[in-house]
């Protein structure tokens, strides 16, 4: 039996990889080896995993500075990611991007951005390109509830609907933008209500069930490949367990209730899947992943030297 032959195994492998990697980041962060602000996905991994397991390798994803989960779910390329966080030339962006700017063109990760909302129109443009080239790949665009505040979000929804583009928008609604609760930013917290009038199919999944996310995506992506459906919008309610940026908890700040988070911790999809998985296989996955993580951090720790001229490289394609 090979690991990853069943959906449960694939989910577990990916969820475990992301969770454990970020836990290692939390541990290592105080040593200052990571030279970059980190926005952890701990607790929200199920959204990326549920969606991305339903994609083909040649499908494309765009995401945000909170992008570790998406990056790992799509690429599994831990060495390149950790090296990037360490500021090494062996990183996916040659150490020029850090945690907020992850990329893997071969695996369809087209880059994450630190400016809220900016990858949304890019993902729409990419879908336009795919449609023009009559490719049957599909784009998935990940963003947070904060991005919905930005005008460019609406411009992008409107254009994607107008051109009936092959794109799935995935809003990870953790209800906060930094410390700003949704009620400080909108009249209502239901984001689907705010986009369905553009003329697109919408779906809101409130309970964090990874299977619902996977199944919905699977169906939608198949239809999107047929081209006429136009964009689809998926809102996944979720919860960020850690502080907005950095490795710590933030309950001492008092801007949110611990109970909010407790509910989500009790509903942890990683635990759920672990329980559903065959114990032996799960243990095997765990040991493989632990090994990968150790390897990636070791790899990143290795000294690599930048050529002095490197700072001036990559500005333009000559």
């Amino acid at each position, binding site marked *: 039996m090979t690991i990853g032959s069943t959906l449960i195994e694939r989910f577990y492998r990916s969820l475990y990889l992301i969770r454990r990697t970020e836990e290692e980041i939390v541990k290592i962060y105080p040593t200052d080896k990571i030279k970059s602000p980190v926005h952890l996905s701990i607790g929200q991994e199920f959204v990326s995993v549920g969606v991305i397991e339903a994609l083909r390798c040649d499908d*494309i994803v*765009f995401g945000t500075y909170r992008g570790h989960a998406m990056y790992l779910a799509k690429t599994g390329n831990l060495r390149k990611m950790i090296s990037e966080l360490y500021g090494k030339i062996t*990183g*996916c*962006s*040659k*150490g*020029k*991007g850090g945690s907020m*700017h992850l*990329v893997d*063109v071969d695996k369809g990760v*087209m*880059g994450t*951005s630190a*400016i809220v909302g*900016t990858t*949304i*129109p*890019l*993902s*729409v*443009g*990419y*879908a*336009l*390109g*795919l449609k*023009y*080239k009559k490719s049957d790949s599909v784009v998935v665009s990940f963003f947070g509830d904060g991005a919905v505040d930005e*005008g*460019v979000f609406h*411009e*992008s929804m*409107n*254009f994607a609907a*107008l051109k009936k583009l092959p794109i799935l928008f995935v809003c990870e609604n953790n209800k906060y933008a930094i410390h700003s609760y949704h009620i400080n930013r909108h009249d209502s917290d239901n984001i689907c209500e705010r986009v369905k009038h553009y003329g697109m199919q919408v779906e809101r999944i409130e309970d964090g069930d990874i299977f619902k996310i996977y199944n919905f995506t699977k169906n939608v992506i198949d239809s999107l490949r047929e081209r006429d459906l136009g964009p689809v919008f998926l809102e996944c309610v979720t919860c960020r367990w850690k502080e907005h940026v950095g490795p710590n908890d933030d309950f001492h700040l008092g801007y949110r209730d611990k109970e909010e988070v407790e509910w989500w911790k009790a509903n942890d999809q990683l635990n759920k899947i672990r329980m559903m998985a065959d114990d032996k296989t799960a243990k095997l996955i765990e040991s493989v992943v632990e090994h990968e993580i150790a390897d990636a951090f070791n790899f990143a720790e290795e000294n690599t030297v930048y050529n002095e001229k490197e700072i001036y*490289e*990559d*500005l*333009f*394609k000559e």
Partner: protein
Amino acid sequence: MERILSYPEAIREATEQEMLRDSSVVIFGQGVDDPKRILGTTKGLLERFGSERVFDTPLSEDGITGVAIGAALAGLRPINTHIRMDFMLLAMNQIINMAAKMRYMFGGVYRVPIVIRALIGKSWGQGAQHSQSIYPLFMNIPGLKIFVPSTPYDAKGCMITSIRDDNPVIFIEHRLLYYQKGYVPEKSYSVPFGKARILDKGKDVTLVGISQMVIECLRAKKYLQEVNIDAEVIDMVSLSPLDIDTVKNSVMKTEKLIIVDNAWTVCGAGSEIITRLIEMDVKMQVRRMGFAFVPCPTAPALEQHFYPDAKKIAMNAFNMLNPNKKEWQPNLELSIEEIEFKGPF
């Protein structure tokens, strides 16, 4: 006989030739397919290439710029039009935070071949929000290339270069230049970035013009002949990268430099050119000309004080060469017929 095209025809021809050559070239923006076809620059493209390659967009400047970048990542070569440069202020986030930085920020893994066409308005009371020329804002940003062609020949050659370039290019067209006609070869050719052009030789003073101010400098040169001043006129053509050497060589000869910006001068192209020359220890006298440092007023009586023009340039040069003589005014009768502009706006 020489083949004469107007400036917009030159742009149109370049676009059409590139679209024929390369099916990844697409063009979109407000009005590209409408009856006026961006003052003729997109005429016939819809008919020839269809609405998948030539299309109108909603009024969503930031979003559409992002769409262009995304499409470029997917392998297209989008041209995005702004009928006024002022509207680019809505797209600064995508242009500066994204297009200019994406290749670098991701360690060079991909290319961002987009061309952003920006038209500058002038005259006839277009006013504060329809007359800006904000190229200094882009010159300050690494990762962008900028063309400001002033002749039909360069309009075509620079457009071809821009479309083929694998990086974000800002292509600036001044609406008054649309009345320029000139020799344009039918064949495809490209004009390089970072090469200024000496349009007319001279030995007494160097006049550097940018965009439409090149025309004013050429007129000023004619005026100055009346008082036996022989001006050299340089068209910068490209602002990023900037060709300092051509200016330097000219100034080494004339020792006098007037830069006529088609923009506000504070932190402008003129400041940059002068500073680079000073850093290279060039000895010279310098003057900057450009927009009055206020928003553009609409009343003609005020607007005339807003812009540099051939007469002001000539007077400034005369004064520079003859600091002790009394003010001289060119004999405007002698002048080249002025182009009357009054719309379309």
